[in-house]
């Protein structure tokens, strides 16, 4: 029974693939080993850590809890599909970059996919909604503070770069401060410490 070859058709990041898979091949291994898309990381391989989160027909799901055969006929989006190498970063990637929403980076591709789907469905999520979505991805380095900041920054970038006031932030003064002579830039200055982390 182990040599059963199942013909599957999947669309991954817009490209069609028709191939044979063994039934027990997990979608994570299909993406990484067959398609060489190694941006989807394998952490726990039993559905706890969220590092392998991809979008299956638009829904964020754990690729380690899906057999490749079950994805037959599905559209899959992985981190590689967010932005091509020669393109600017996707707004969610840009936000993680700006706010330093990572340390070792192992979990990051999973977070990027989760946050991409969250902000697509809920452009201005409540703190509760952000925490609910991020709770499905484990980060052992950051303590989540900068990841939450990245979600808020991505929310701004996706809304056209305008700052979105935090729900509990004091209201922005309506009269301009007398010392501010220059308009506030709508795009942030490059992060100075860009090259500081390998």
């Amino acid at each position, binding site marked *: 029974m*182990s040599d059963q070859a199942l013909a599957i058709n999947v669309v991954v990041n817009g490209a069609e693939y028709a191939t044979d898979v063994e039934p027990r091949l997990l979608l994570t291994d299909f993406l990484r080993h067959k398609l060489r898309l190694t941006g989807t990381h394998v952490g726990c391989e039993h559905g706890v850590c*969220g590092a392998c989160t991809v979008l299956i027909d638009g829904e964020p799901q754990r690729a380690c809890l899906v*057999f490749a055969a079950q994805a037959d006929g599905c559209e899959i989006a992985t981190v590689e599909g967010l932005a091509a190498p020669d393109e600017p970063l996707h707004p969610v990637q840009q936000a993680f970059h700006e706010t330093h929403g990572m340390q070792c980076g192992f979990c990051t591709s999973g977070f990027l996919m*989760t946050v991409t789907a969250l902000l697509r469905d809920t452009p201005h999520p409540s703190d509760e909604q952000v925490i609910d*979505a991020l709770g499905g991805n484990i980060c052992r380095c950051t303590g989540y503070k900068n990841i939450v900041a990245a979600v808020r920054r991505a929310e701004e970038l996706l809304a056209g770069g305008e700052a979105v006031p935090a729900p509990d932030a004091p209201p922005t003064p309506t009269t301009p401060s007398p010392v501010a002579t220059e308009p506030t830039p709508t795009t942030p200055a490059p992060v100075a410490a860009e090259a500081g982390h390998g």
Partner: protein
Amino acid sequence: MKPAAFEYHAPREFDDVLELLADDSVDARVIAGGQSLVPMMSFRLAAPERLVDLRRVEALRELRVEADGTLVVGASVTQARLLRTVERSHPLLAEGISHIGHPQIRSRGTVCGSLAHHDPTAELPALALALDARFSVVSAEGGERELDADEFFVSYYEVALEPGEMLASVTFPAWSGERGWSFRELARRRGDFALVGAVATVERSASGTPSDPRLVLFGVGERPVRMHEVEAVLDGAPLDAEGIEATRALIADAITPVDDVHASAEYRREAAVELAVDALAEAWGRSRDV
């Protein structure tokens, strides 16, 4: 670890699913969302010889809200889909489902899959018991039989499905907006399985006393338990703070939690009592005069 080898089928017809399950020389399992089964297979806690995927069977994707509000949930309906459907119409079911795992799990995990898997600390079995859900169990040979939650849940990870049978749908009776409700659970981290949890519902009679109170606890034994003795004491009695406090000893005596790596039996008992009295008070506060 990787799952052991198995043969895989994804038929289009429900009858073909049942045929593939009927062969008792093969250890066959149904897979829908796979959010419990796949990790068990990766740990080799389960090594079925055959998986029958429900994804192509149109009839099992049905999520029907009948004219009277009865909900019929087919075997392939995901938790996220039911949550979206009942967000306004069934606040207790919605609240309970929102505690299952994470959005990434609920978008694939199914309602019937969670029920058939029967982790005794899971939310849906307790909700099904509290809400008088009916289970439609089907096989090629035996046709259809209908069970209630008390008959369906047997013990840890064990339900009343016989070889060749599968859970085809679950039916939740219509929810009455006048009924008060509460869903409480204690988990160490968001999205974890609960250590213990409580579901309470109650109606307020014309005379202002509780009517048909329900209390279900989960994570306190081999299956979710309805606290019939507590319900009997509460029914018709004034449900003030004193009345609720008086149930503490009854609840503590009625449950038999066990020690495990996550919590001691004593801790579970204490937590269950606290959640239960809080849930009863909250449900009563939410009930409205009929």
